[in-house]
C-alpha cells in the first residue's frame, strides 16, 4: 500500500499547469507557482455556484490535522461531464492536486481528485486541461 495513504502529508509537486476556473481568472485567487498535493479525509462538500468546494482533513507528520478547502468547477459544468455530487463524499480519503490560494489560507484550487483505487476525476472548469499536463 502506498505510504501516502497511511500518512497523509502535504508536499509540493513540480510545475503543473494551473487548473483554470471560469467565473474569475485563476490569477485572481490562486498562485500558479505554488502547486500542492494533499491527501486526507473529506469533511464537507459544497455543491454550489460559482464553484464547488470540498474540504479535507490533512494530517502532517507530527499528527496535527489541518482542514484544507479546495474549489473546483461550477456544478453544471461538472455534471455535464458526468461528475455529480456523489463523486466526492464526506469520509472518503482522497488525494487532491491543486494550487495554493494567494491569501496564505489553507485553501486552494482543486483541479484533480484521485481515489485510493487509482481512479481520478478532473474537478476544474476547463474541459481539456489537467494539472500537470
Amino acid at each position, binding site marked *: 500500500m502506498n505510504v501516502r495513504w497511511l500518512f497523509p502529508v502535504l508536499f509540493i509537486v513540480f510545475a503543473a499547469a494551473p487548473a483554470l476556473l471560469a467565473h474569475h481568472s485563476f490569477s485572481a485567487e490562486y498562485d500558479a507557482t505554488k502547486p500542492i498535493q494533499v491527501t486526507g479525509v473529506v469533511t464537507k462538500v459544497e455543491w454550489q*455556484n460559482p464553484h464547488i468546494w470540498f474540504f479535507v482533513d490533512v494530517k502532517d507528520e507530527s499528527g496535527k490535522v489541518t482542514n484544507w478547502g479546495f474549489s473546483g468547477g461550477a456544478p*453544471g*459544468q461538472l*455534471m455535464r461531464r458526468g461528475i455529480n455530487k456523489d463523486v466526492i463524499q464526506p469520509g472518503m480519503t482522497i488525494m487532491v492536486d491543486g494550487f495554493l490560494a494567494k491569501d496564505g489560507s489553507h*485553501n486552494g484550487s482543486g483541479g484533480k481528485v484521485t481515489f485510493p483505487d487509482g481512479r481520478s476525476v478532473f474537478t476544474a472548469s476547463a474541459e481539456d*486541461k489537467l494539472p500537470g499536463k
Partner: protein
Amino acid sequence: MIMKISKYAALAGALSGIVFASAALLAQQSKFPPRTPDGKPDLSGIYQWPKTDEGEKCKCSATIFDRNKFPPFKPGGEAFYEPRTGDPRHDEPRDFCLPAGFPSGMLSANAVRFIQNKNFLVMAHEFQAMTRLIPLDGRPHRKGIEPSFYGDPVGHWEGDTLVVETTNFKRWSLDDYFYTNPKEYRMHSDALRTIERISWKDPKTLSYKLTIDDPKIFTAAWSQDFTMTPHPDWEQMGIFEYVCEENNRCPGGKCGK
C-alpha cells in the same frame, strides 16, 4: 428450389432495407433546416457555447476572439488594452459576481438554450444565468434607457439567417482575453454595436457569425465565424441554476471558510 427462393427473399429483403434507409435519409434531409409553424428556421435547442479553431486559445475554458481579425485602432483606440491596476474590483469584476456582459458571456464555457417563437428568441445561457430576450417582431431598439452590460438586442430574418443587432452597451470587457494576458483587458467602448448572424449549417452545426463594430476603437467593423453544436443529449439535464453569490468564497482573492 427452396434454397433459391430463400436467396431471392433475402436479396429482396436487403434491397427493401436499402430503399427504406434511403427514404428515411431523404426525409430527414428534406426536414433540414427544422422550421417553426410560421416557416422560419427553428433555432430552438440546447447548445454548446460558440467555438472556433481560429486564433489564440484562452487560458481558460471560454472562447476568445482572434487578434488577427482586428483592424487598426483609431486614435485613442489603444484604450482597448486597458492595463490592470492591482485593484481586484477593477481587475476581476466577475470575482465579485459582476456580469460577464455580451459578447463575453456568450462565449463562456457553459450550455445555452435557445427558445424561439414568432416574436422572440430567448437565449438562456447557464453562465451567470445570462438571459437575452431578442424581439423578432420588427420593433426598433428601445430609446432613453441606460447602457447595460448586455445591451439592447433586436432581431430580424434575412432568408434563413437570423440577424441580431445589439446596441447601447456600457464599457466592459469584450471577451475573456484577460485570462490569457493578466496584465491587460480587451475593453470595448460604449459605442459598441454587435451583429450576430445565426443559421443552420448542417443538422449537427449552427453557424454563429459575430460582427464587432466599435467605432471608438477600430477603424472598421470586423467579424469572426464560430459554430455551435446542438446537444439533444443535454435536454434531460437542461440548464442548471447559476447563482454566483451563493458560495463565492474568494472575492478579490480573499478566501474564507
